């Protein structure tokens, strides 16, 4: 059953990895731990849910499942919309809250605190609007496929792994090969010098919010598709996201994805070895271990330490 735990871990880890990539990007460029990142995950999932529902009921053909998957074309379209809406939400919060605080020259910890307040407001607003009852993209039960080695996996799960790895690779290429990616790495290292080198730092800040929130929306949608959609889903993911971002090394996209998979695998094995009720403790154990042994993370620059 080790093989099955591996697969479950990878599926779970792909979702954590996607979120952690967003955390690591925003953390390295905005320079504070954003406690509201989990809420971008939840809002992304709810945006996708609403759009999917609207599209599915407007055009029934869009709701018909694509191939082996549990969802119709309405979901990919809804996901694109959710990415855009989440990005807009993140930009709005930055415009209202973080931007003014940055301009005042507030200390890092004030920004952390503001993100904490924003998280509180965003999460409870979701609970107010949708109640705490879980929602599902589809009520259809998906039949798991049998894979070699006696592993069972649904097509949706395999898709989550594929999309997670694909997006991480794409983002890594974006950061290393494109002008905007270069500029992002420059701002992450030294925002003051970046301005002097001709980079519009405010544009890079907006870019990183769009990317971080977009990835959060993808993570939220997959989490909703594979498990369920709840207002607390982002809060529950927050510790794994932070643990993975720090384990991967702040600023490292491949690091965050790999660390996300590690945390996901850790959770899957913990579920089998210790019991499902202890799952949430795995991220804390990972966090303590990395802070104790290698605070700069697996792939981190010296700066992160």
């Amino acid at each position, binding site marked *: 059953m080790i093989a099955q735990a591996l697969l479950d871990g990878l599926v779970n880890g792909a979702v954590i990895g996607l979120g952690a990539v967003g955390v690591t990007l925003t953390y390295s460029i905005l320079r504070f731990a954003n406690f509201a990142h989990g809420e971008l995950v939840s809002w992304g999932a709810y945006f996708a849910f609403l759009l999917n529902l609207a599209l599915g009921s407007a055009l029934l053909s869009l709701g018909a499942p694509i191939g082996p998957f549990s969802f119709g074309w309405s979901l990919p379209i809804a996901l694109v919309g959710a990415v855009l809406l989440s990005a807009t939400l993140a930009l709005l919060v930055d415009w209202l809250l973080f931007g003014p605080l940055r301009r005042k020259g507030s200390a890092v910890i004030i920004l952390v605190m503001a993100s904490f307040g924003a998280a509180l407001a965003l999460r409870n607003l979701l609970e*107010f609007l949708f109640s705490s009852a879980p929602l599902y993209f589809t009520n259809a039960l998906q039949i798991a496929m049998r894979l070699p080695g006696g592993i069972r996996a649904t097509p949706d799960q395999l898709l989550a792994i594929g999309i997670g790895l694909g997006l991480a690779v794409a983002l890594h290429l974006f950061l290393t090969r494109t002008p905007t990616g270069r500029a992002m790495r420059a701002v992450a290292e*030294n925002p003051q010098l970046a301005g002097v080198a001709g980079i519009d730092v405010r544009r890079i800040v907006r870019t990183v919010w769009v990317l971080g929130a977009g990835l959060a929306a993808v993570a939220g949608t997959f989490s909703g598709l594979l498990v369920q959609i709840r207002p607390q889903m982002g809060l529950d993911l927050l510790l794994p996201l932070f643990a993975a971002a720090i384990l991967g090394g702040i600023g490292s996209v491949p690091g965050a994805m790999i660390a996300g998979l590690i945390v996901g695998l850790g959770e899957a094995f913990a579920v089998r070895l210790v019991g499902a009720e*202890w799952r949430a403790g795995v991220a804390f154990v990972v966090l*303590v271990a990395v802070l104790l042994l290698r605070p700069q993370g697996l792939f981190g620059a010296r700066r992160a330490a």
Partner: protein
Amino acid sequence: MILDLAAYLAFFLTVALSYAVITLGLNVQWGQTGLFNVGVAGFVAVGAYASALLTTPDAPDRFGGFGLPIIVGWAGAMLAAGLVSLAVGALTMRLRSDYLAIATFGVAVVVQLCALNLQTVTGGPFGIGFIPRPFTSFAGDPLLFSLANLALLALVVLALYLFLERLLSSPWGRVLRAIREDEAAATALGKPALRFRLQAFALGGAIMGLAGAAQAHFIGFIAPDNYLPTLTFQVWAMLIVGGSGNNRGAILGAVVVWALWALSGSVIGSVFPAGWQARAAALQIALIGVGLCAILLWRPRGILGERRIVSRHLVTAPKANPSLVNNTPPEIPHA
């Protein structure tokens, strides 16, 4: 009728004062030292459970129940929460300032997890009952009972207030302030800044543990649900409203915010239909979140303002250029 009202008022104030104790603890960590604790509920819970285990009568279905006197329970609560704080602080204090925040958040998650799952110690989701309450001999007279409890908590708050004020004007407090205002100078003077911060964080945690124990013995019953993140948020709101760095403000903030909380809770209770109560409660918390952000934006020194001490973290200095991302704090060396 008037007696009922008086009893309710005494009850209300007792709860508010128990929050004031937590807020005083947070003030030592944040207001005086600038250490951000996102897991307040976890430290309060550690204190509550420690004291409950030490003082409840022996229970056959779980570990402990040592039947010790309440005062031993309170001491144990402070010790347990202080030690947990010490461990978290030692783990993260050398690192970036927000790593401590992340780690304390993790502590709250794990404490919650343990409270729920370590059935044989914590009683699981149902918690621990039959926690001895002080003044049980007055239990027949609700008013007298409430007043006695109120007096006890008022005494705790007063003692704590005097202790903290003295401590802050002592050499220890002066060093702490020096570290906060200018870490480079403090370190150069040969005062190991890390140790002082660690001590302050542990002290703050111990005070939160004491508050947890006091609440547990006042109510007589604890369960994991009492220590959800909402508690952390409430305490933060209390400190921010009172003005961090200010002990009197912390106490007043606790009473004011608890009053607002109770009042808005009862308004929501009467305005919203029964099916919407849970959602209305969520709205209440959402508003606290918005309020917290608004205060950070417009009144960073709290509504009552700071007395005497201005936290380095709340001072806003004009920085190089508005287009730049927030300046890197000095403790992060650039590669």
